[in-house]
C-alpha cells in the first residue's frame, strides 16, 4: 500500500507517521510537500499532526489554503481514504472535509497524556480491525482539541454512525471526568458522510509499539491495510 504523508511548514508528526508506517507495518510511505498539487497514485493520505504555520491564526486555518489541499479534496471525493491526526483533523475541519471545529481545550492548557477511547463504529475503513465497544489507549497532545459543532451537526454525526471514537474511562464509560478537553459528547474522532475521511485528535502513530506504552493505535493502520486487501479481492 502506498501512503502519502503531507508536510506543511510546521508539521511535526510527519516523520513519526512515515517511520511508523515503514518500520511497524513495512509499508511504502512518502512525504508530500504542501506546495505539491497532485496526490494521484496514493492509496491513503495522512494529514499529520504539528503546528502548521505555527497555528497562530486558528489551527489549520492557513494550511487549508496550501496547494496540496485541493488535491486532498479531489482524492477524498474519489473515495481515497484520508486520515487527519490532531492538527490534521483541525485542517480537515477548516477545509470543510469534516464538519465542526476544534477549539481551545476546556482547561486552557496544552494536554499530553494517554487517554482511553471507546471505539463506536467497527465498520469504517479506519476501524474495522477493532470491534464496537472496544476500549483503546492512545495518547493525545494538543492545546485545541475540544470538538465543537451545532446541535444539528452532532445529531447527524450520531444518527449516521459517524462518531468513530469517544473519550471514556478504562472500562468504556463515557464520562465528563474522562473528557480531557471538553469536547461535545466526548467526541475524539469523526467520519465524513461517505466514510472515507477520518479526523481524530489522539495520535495512533504514537501507540504502535509496546515500548511506547500501547499498541492500540495499530488498529487504525491495520484497518486501512485490511481495507486495501479487501478492495483488491
Amino acid at each position: 500500500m502506498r501512503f502519502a504523508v503531507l508536510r506543511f511548514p510546521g508539521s511535526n508528526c510527519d516523520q513519526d507517521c512515515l517511520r511508523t508506517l515503514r518500520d511497524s507495518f513495512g509499508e511504502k510511505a512518502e512525504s508530500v510537500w504542501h506546495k505539491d498539487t497532485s496526490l494521484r497514485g496514493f492509496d491513503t493520505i495522512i494529514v499529520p499532526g504539528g503546528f502548521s504555520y505555527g497555528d497562530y491564526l486558528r489551527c489549520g486555518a492557513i494550511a487549508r489554503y496550501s496547494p496540496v489541499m485541493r488535491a486532498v479534496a479531489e482524492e477524498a471525493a474519489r473515495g481515497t481514504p484520508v486520515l487527519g491526526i490532531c492538527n490534521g483533523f483541525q485542517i480537515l475541519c477548516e477545509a470543510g472535509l469534516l464538519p465542526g471545529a476544534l477549539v481551545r481545550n476546556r482547561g486552557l492548557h496544552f494536554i499530553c497524556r494517554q487517554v482511553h477511547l471507546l471505539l463506536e463504529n467497527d465498520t469504517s475503513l479506519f476501524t474495522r480491525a477493532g470491534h464496537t465497544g472496544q476500549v483503546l489507549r492512545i495518547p493525545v497532545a494538543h492545546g485545541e482539541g475540544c470538538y465543537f459543532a451545532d446541535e444539528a451537526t452532532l445529531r447527524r454525526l450520531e444518527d449516521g454512525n459517524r462518531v468513530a471514537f469517544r473519550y471514556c474511562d478504562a472500562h468504556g464509560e463515557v464520562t465528563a471526568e474522562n473528557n480531557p478537553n471538553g469536547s461535545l459528547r466526548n467526541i475524539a474522532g469523526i467520519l465524513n458522510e461517505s466514510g472515507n475521511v477520518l479526523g481524530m485528535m489522539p495520535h495512533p502513530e504514537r501507540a504502535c509499539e509496546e515500548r511506547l506504552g500501547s499498541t492500540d493505535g495499530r488498529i487504525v493502520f491495520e484497518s486501512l491495510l485490511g481495507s486495501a486487501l479487501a478492495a483488491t479481492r
Partner: protein
Amino acid sequence: MKEPAITPEIIARHGITPEEYQRIRGILGRDPNFTELGIFSVMWSEHCSYKNSRPELKKFPVTGERILVKAGEENAGVLDVGDGWAVAFKIESHNHPSAIEPFQGAATGVGGIIRDIFTMGARPVFLLDSLRFGPVDKNAPGAAANRHLLSGVVSGIAHYGNCIGVPTVGGETWFDETYSGNPLVNVFCLGVLRHDQIARGAAKGVGNPVFYVGAETGRDGLAGAAFASRELTEESKEDRPAVQVGDPFREKLLLEACLELLASGCVAGIQDMGAAGLTCSTCETASRGGNGIDVDLDSVPKREEGMTPYEILLSESQERMLVIVNKGQEGNVREIFEKWDLPYAQIGRVTDDGIMRIRAGDRVVAEIPASSLTDQAPVYHREAAPWIAPAPLDIANVPVADNSEALLRLLSHPTLASKRWIWDQYDHMVRNGAVVGPGSDAAVFLERECGKLLAASVDGNGLITSLDPREGGRRCVAEAARNLACSGAVPLGATDNLNFGNPHKPEIFRQLRDAVEGLAEACRVFGTPVTGGNVSLYNENPSGPIDPTPVIAMVGLVEDEAHVTRQSFRGQGDDIWLLGERAAGLDGSQFLLIVHGRKEGRPPQTDLAAEVALHSALRDAIRAGLVRSAHDCAEGGIAVALAESCISGPALVGAEVGLPDDGGRDDESLFHEAPGRILVSSAPEHRAALEKHFAGRGIPARHLGTTGGDALVIRLRGTDYHWPLGRLHRAWDKSLGILMDTVAEPLAAH
C-alpha cells in the same frame, strides 16, 4: 542620525568600568564611538565573556576519549556515542527574562538552546528543564506572583517546545522562598548528528560571502546580554523591551532550512544570533576563524524603519543565523531559503585583516579587532570570603513531629509532589522516542535515526549548596550519575548551569568557587567531562541573593533496551532492597525545611568513590537481569523514595518493609538524606544471586521487605507506620494541580 557623545554617565550606563574603558581606548588607540561602546558593553558582559567566572570554569575536566568538540570551542560540546554517531548538548538559563515576562522569557530560552544545538549541525531531539520558583502554596508570601511566574514559564516552554516539535522528556522543579521574584529557568537540549556533520562557527575562507538568514531584525531584546548581567531591581520591569518575543514556527522553518543547507555542503561556518545578536555572531566567527569580517548593515533584513547601527547590532531578535558560505555556492542559500519562505541576505564577506568592520552603506560605523571582543575580554579574579563550616544540627532541638503526617506533607509539597501538572503541558511524546518519559529517575530516549538509547537527568540542590557549596556541587553530579545508573545507563558527559548571585560580593564568589570545585571534582571521578554550559550571575531580588544553585545535566547511554529500568515497583511479591551505607541526621534535609521550616545543619558528605562503585555494581546487576526497579533515595529520604516507588507507576503497588534501628530517632531513619543510597526491587527467585552480586562488589545491600498489599507499611523500632496507597497517591499526584488550577488568578496585566 547623530550618535550621543561618550560621557562618564553613558559609559557607566553600559556597565563598563573606568578601567575597562581605558582598556578599550588602548585596544582602539582612540575613544570608541557610541556604537562601538555598545558592542564592547555586550561582548564584555558576564553573559558573553564569563569575565567573573572564567578562571573558575577552567577547573572543569573537559577532555575525554569521547569528546569531539570541547567546551568553549563552539556553541555546544559534541560527544561520540558510537557507530559514527554523536550527540551535541548544552544547558542554558533564561532567568532574568523569565522574571520580567515569564511566558516569552522561557519560550525564547527554549528557542535559544535549540538554536545552539542545530548550529552544530545536529538535529535537536529532546529537551529537559530545571526550574526554581518561590512558594506557590495558598498562604505563602508572594504566592500569587510565584504562581503567575510558574504558570507563565511552563506555558512558555510548552508553547515553544511543542510547536517546534522537540519533546520535553524530563526535568526537575523546586520551590523555595529564595527564588521568589527571581525564578530559575534552565533548559537543556540534546541533538544527534553524524561525526562528519559537525558544523563550525568559524569565518573560514577569505572572500567567502556572509549571509544573514532567518527572521528580520527588530528593536526587541535590545542588549539582553547586558541586562542578564545585572541584579533585578524594582525598576527591572521597565527593562521589558530587553525581553524578546519568540516565534517557534519561524525557528522550525529555520531549523529545517539550516539542516538542509548544511547537508548541501556549501557552509564554511555557521553561528546562531543569540545573546548580543549580530555583534556576537560576527566577531566570534571572525575571531574563531582567525580572520576579519566586513558587514553592511544596510543589507540586513529589518522589521522596522529607521533603526540605528547601534540598535541593529545589539538587537536580540530571535530566530536568526549567520552563515558563511563557500564562494560560488550562494545559489544553495537562495534555493533552500526560498523553499522555506525565509528571509536571507548577503550582508558581507570574510576578510584577512582580523577586523570586525561594520558599515552602514558607505559609512564605517564600527571598526574593532575581532579577537579583542572575545579573547581579550577582561578577566577578574574576584575576592572570596573565608569558608566557615556550618554548625551541625543539634537533633535534640528538633521537636518530634507526627511522622505519619510528615510523609503526607512531604509528598504533597510542590518540590516533592508529582510534576504531572507541568509535564502534561509538554508534548513529551513527539518523535516517538520517550521510552522513559517524565517522572522517573532519568529520561531514556530512543533516537530512531541512530538507534541509540540516550539517557539524561538534570539535577541541582540549592538547599545543600547554600549550606555547603562544595558538597552541593558534588551532590548534584553524584545524583545525576545515580539517576542514570538507576535507569540502566552509563554516563558519558555533562553540561552545567551555574546560577548564583552577584559575584562582586565575596560571600557569593566563595559559593561560586567552592561549588565549581565540587562539581569539577565529581565530574572527574565519574569520568564525565563538562562539554560546556552557562553561567547566570546576579540572581538577586530586592530581598537578597538566591541560594547558590548549580545545576548539572548528565547524558548517558543505555547499551540494550532490556536494561532500561524505572523507579516504580512492578508487581506484588518482589523483594525490596536498600543499597548503600546507612547514615543518620536531618541536616539540610527537605524534612527539616518543609516540616520544621529550618535550613540548617552540616549536610552529609558524598563519598564519590563509593558512589562510583555503587553505580557500577547496580548497572551490572541490571545487565544480569536481577533488577526489576531502581530508585535514587534523594529528597525526603527513604520514606519518600519508598512511597514514590509505590505510587509513580502505571498501577499502585504496596510495600511492607522494616527499617533497621540506627540508634537514632524515627524521623532520622525515615527522612534523612545521605547520598549514595538506592532502592531496588527484584524477583524473589533472584534473592541469592542479588545478595551474592552486591556482597562480591563490597556494596551493602539490605533486604528491607516485600512489595504487595494496598498500603505502604514501614516497621521501625516497634512502630508500624501505615499509609493506604490511595492517600499517598492523592497527596502526591494532585497537589500541584490543585494549587495551580483551583487557586489560579487571572494573569497580571501587562
